[in-house]
């Protein structure tokens, strides 16, 4: 009994404070979460629109596709169908996650309506080193992936970056981040195609 009394005397402030602070965070989170989620949706749609310029709107085509990247746990992603103003499917986009140099890299990747070639990618979130790894956000890597056949990609240190093929030339000073992007593409594309075929969106 004395022990319990001593415990309460010592820790009551900590327990009460934890409860109050927890409540404060819960209120803030409940109030702002819808706005935060809306911001994320807006950003995702904006990036998808930049990749698939003909798209008028996006709708979820396949939900919860489970993909295991080279490192880390399997992640689930949704595949979005891009629809033009006439209601025709003009491509598919999905969010892909993988390990970068500093932290996880989150990409938006787009493929054409037949899942035969890539439209490219945009970085949704990354904490790669400023001035080095974050060069993956620039056009150098993105341009190399535009129009590339949707299949296994290979990263090379030297080569012709203007040639549209599966050999992707790494960014100088950002080799690890470039490899992370290529690994993400390789980890996702087969799974995405498999699900699109299963659901009858592509042949």
């Amino acid at each position, binding site marked *: 009994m004395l022990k319990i009394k001593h415990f309460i005397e*010592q*820790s009551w*402030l*900590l327990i009460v*404070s*934890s409860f109050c*602070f927890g409540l*404060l*965070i819960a209120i*803030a*989170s409940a109030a*702002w979460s819808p*706005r*935060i989620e809306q*911001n994320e949706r807006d*950003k995702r749609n904006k990036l998808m629109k930049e990749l698939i310029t003909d798209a008028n709107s996006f709708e979820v085509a396949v939900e919860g596709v489970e993909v295991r990247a080279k490192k880390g746990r399997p992640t689930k992603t949704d595949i979005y169908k891009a629809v033009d103003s006439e209601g025709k499917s003009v491509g598919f986009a999905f969010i892909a996650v993988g390990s970068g140099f500093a*932290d996880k890299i989150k990409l938006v990747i787009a493929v054409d309506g037949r899942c035969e070639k890539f439209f490219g990618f945009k970085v949704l*979130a990354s*904490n790669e080193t*400023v*001035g080095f790894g974050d060069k993956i956000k620039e056009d150098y890597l993105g341009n190399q992936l535009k129009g590339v056949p949707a299949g296994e990609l290979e990263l090379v240190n030297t080569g012709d970056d203007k040639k549209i093929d599966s050999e992707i030339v790494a960014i100088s000073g950002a080799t690890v981040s470039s490899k992370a992007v290529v690994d993400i593409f390789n980890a996702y594309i087969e799974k995405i195609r498999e699900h699109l075929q299963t659901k009858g969106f592509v042949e």
Partner: protein
Amino acid sequence: MASETSNTSVLGQTFVAGLWDENPVFRLLLGMCPTLAVTAAVKPALTMGCSVIFVLLCSNIVVSLMRNLLKPHLRILMFTLTIATFVTICDLFLKAFMPEMSETLGPYVPLIIVNCIIICRAEACASKNGLVVSVIDGIGMGLGFTITLCVLAGVRELLATGKIFELQVMPDSFVPWAAMSMPVGAFITLGLLLALVNAVSKRKS
């Protein structure tokens, strides 16, 4: 009357201390991580400074109010809990209302939790003084930190892009120093500003 004047003088000294004599960056060399990491441009530096003012002010108020209830061996735990709460609220606010800035600042907003300035002020001032002194100290220290960050960021942005707040300041003939936007630019600028502040202090004394 004399006591009232003395109180005002103490509050004035507490406020000014954060701006110069005990400036967190130039004199105490605290908070070096955000100082070096988010000062490539003035806007993120200003946002980081305002975030630190908010967290410092709120944590100083809470710690000051509970100072008589604190158990010595639990005080660091209480400080961390208090600081983490306000940092989380600040982080959520930025994500909700300034999403682009939140992305630019990346992990450095959550890292305010381990910013030595906040815990230092909780330990050195708020846990030993009343509410008014703690509030003044929080504002003074926060402003000192923000002004320092903005000065550093202003120099770096100006030399790296020729602009400040995205407004062209330098003539068209100016060749931008790309290195100033990189970590090396942060170290060099901070070193030179520290040397300048030390030189001014020596001359004053």
